[in-house]
């Protein structure tokens, strides 16, 4: 694990130098899962580092796409940002807004930066009104024993917002906003299709008027036509309410469609980070090349004329990551003695374009 400062990296730093337009700054985040063994009582014998020292920041109003294959640590990152998992190391700074009493008896909204990762229970609870999450599986993310009203109003109840009547009104409003019939408040999740359930999940996330929503693979379990509906809805909501998204996905074409900037993860590390069009049109990391070239495009002529970069082998186990560059075991351009020894750091290659590779090279893949 590198604990050294990632030089010049945009997000590196504490809360004091966090620019006004940045909403979330993840700073050297590490998440380890212990491997426990023992004959009688289990004790830790090792750790799987799901997220190894990553840093990035999300600007107000933008969508940051976090993309990678299964096991790369993107969902763990989401859960650490939400503090659904306790980060092992690192900070998650969030620029919160709160109402404070002014001297003349009124209130004003002030913003300050707090570390989600170390916030105490009360602060965290208050933060949950501003940070929300939408999950991947529309079947597992709704409590089957609760009505739609119960599910959508839960955040309101937990935060003591309004009376029961007001909450019901709010639920109906939210259902209308996500394109469901407001009449369906007393239905149970099993009565809805996958796409409709995902809309219920979005309504729940919107209930407390959050400013920041983590979208953890929100469309990957849906059929194509439904996927498009939900993506459109998410974009409309962002526009309407000025939301900021952290969009996590494995589907690079979906990420291209919705994100402003994109971070590519491999085995717990960010390997490339860039503006959307830069990343897709001029990717520099060999893993990004392979990933992009592997995504099929629904265009027969283009698809048949493309050159595929086929990676050898499988992703190594995160419990035992290879030394040096984590991609060196599968990298087509890896140099022995360099890539399997030195770990490349994220380095700026252009305006807002950061790459962690010893031999970066622009390559068009379609």
């Amino acid at each position, binding site marked *: 694990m590198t604990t050294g400062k990632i030089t010049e990296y945009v997000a590196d730093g504490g809360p004091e130098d966090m620019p006004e337009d940045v909403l979330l700054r993840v700073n050297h985040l590490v998440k380890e899962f212990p491997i426990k063994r023992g004959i009688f*009582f*289990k004790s830790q014998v090792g750790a799987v580092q799901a997220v190894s020292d990553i840093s990035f920041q999300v600007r107000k109003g933008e969508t940051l796409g976090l993309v990678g294959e299964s096991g790369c640590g993107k969902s763990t990152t989401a*859960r650490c940002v*939400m503090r*659904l998992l306790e980060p092992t190391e690192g900070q998650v700074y969030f620029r919160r807004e709160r109402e404070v009493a002014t001297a003349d008896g009124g209130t004003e909204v002030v913003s300050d930066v707090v570390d989600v990762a170390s916030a105490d229970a009360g602060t*965290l609870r208050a933060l*949950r*009104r501003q*940070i*929300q*999450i939408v*999950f*991947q*599986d529309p*079947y*597992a*993310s*709704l*409590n*089957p*024993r*609760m009505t739609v009203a119960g599910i959508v109003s*839960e*955040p309101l109840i*937990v*935060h003591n917002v309004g009376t029961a009547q007001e909450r019901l009104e709010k639920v109906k*409003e*939210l259902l*209308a*906003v*996500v*394109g*469901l*019939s407001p*009449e*369906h408040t*007393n*239905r*149970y999740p*099993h*009565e*809805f*299709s*996958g*796409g*409709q359930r995902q*809309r219920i*999940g979005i309504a*729940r996330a*919107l*209930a*407390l*008027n959050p400013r920041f929503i983590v979208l953890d693979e929100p469309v990957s379990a849906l059929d194509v036509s439904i996927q498009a*509906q939900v993506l459109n*809805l998410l974009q*409309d*909501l962002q*526009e*309407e*309410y000025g939301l900021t998204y952290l969009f996590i996905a494995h589907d690079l074409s979906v990420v291209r469609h919705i994100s402003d900037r994109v971070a590519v993860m491999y085995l717990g590390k960010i390997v490339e980070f860039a503006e959307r069009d830069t990343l897709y049109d001029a990717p520099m990391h060999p893993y990004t090349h392979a990933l992009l070239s592997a995504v099929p495009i629904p265009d027969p002529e283009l698809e048949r004329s493309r050159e595929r970069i086929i990676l050898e082998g499988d992703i190594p186990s995160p419990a035992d990551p290879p030394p040096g560059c984590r991609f060196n075991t599968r990298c087509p351009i890896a140099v022995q003695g360099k890539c399997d020894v030195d770990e490349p750091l994220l380095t700026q290659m252009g305006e807002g374009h950061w790459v962690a590779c010893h031999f970066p090279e622009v390559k068009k893949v379609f």
Partner: protein
Amino acid sequence: MSNGASGIDESIDAAEGISAEPVTQWDLFRTRLARHKQARIAAIFLALLFAIVFVAPFVTCAERDAYCGKLLEHPATQLRDPENGLLLVQNPPSTTRPFGTDDIGRDVLSRVIHGGRASLTVGLTTGLLVATVGTIVGALAGYYPGAVDQVLMRIVDVILGLPLLPVAIVFGSLVPQIPVLPAFLKEGAWVIAFLLGILLWGGLARIVRAEFLSLREKEFVEAARAAGSNDRRIIFRHILPNAMSPIIVATTLVVGTAIIIEAALSFLGFGVRPPTPTWGGMSAAGARVATKGFWWEFLASSSALVATVLAVNFMGDGLRDALDPTQTIERK
């Protein structure tokens, strides 16, 4: 948040795929349970049984040890029928005594009715005890992994490692003789119920723990946590309602087991002591005379026992079908 959802995707056709009337969990449960024919019959049978066993003795004059009518009228010296000189004990079933009389002339039917009390008391009390203790322990172990879980599960391992019947026999025969125990605990059914509760909660605790372990990782629980819910709300609003089906099903199995073990103990003479009637005890008494041709007492008491346990098990099976979440009508 304004209602002006301008640019929002056109609202999904309200009627699409959604029935006019909301279908509640209770509706689903009821229709599925009603579809299970044996469970329906079992439910009716158990309801009737409860009424008869717990209510009938108060509203009718059927006494527990009602003797053959003639015996009541005549002094005990006249045990023979004056007309044909036959013994008045061990009368086979007749219209006045539908289940006959036993070896000292008591009416078997009224004893079967009274004997049901021990079985049902033990079944229900043990079930309740096991459900409570097992759920609490399992929930604690499943929700708080680490030291709490490890210690509780080691205790469960030990409890489940005990040989059930031999230990129950020792308990049943010796616990009522411990001088310091309060009197009500020494009395027949209660002590058995209590002891079986202690011996049987381990299995349920394991089931509940497994449920909690898997449910606490579910996305809807994470969503509740992300909304700011505290542990109490997550346990009672989110996890427990979803863990209820295995708890209920396992509890019905425990009820059946407890009834059988109580009967076995009473049969062996280590359970509820005579003269209090129990189905197990009556089966033992009936078995002794059945090989002499007096089959009715054994048949009556054992049939009552089997029918009751069967009904409980059918209920469990019906509940399993009705509560199984995998049987939810998924629209995919």
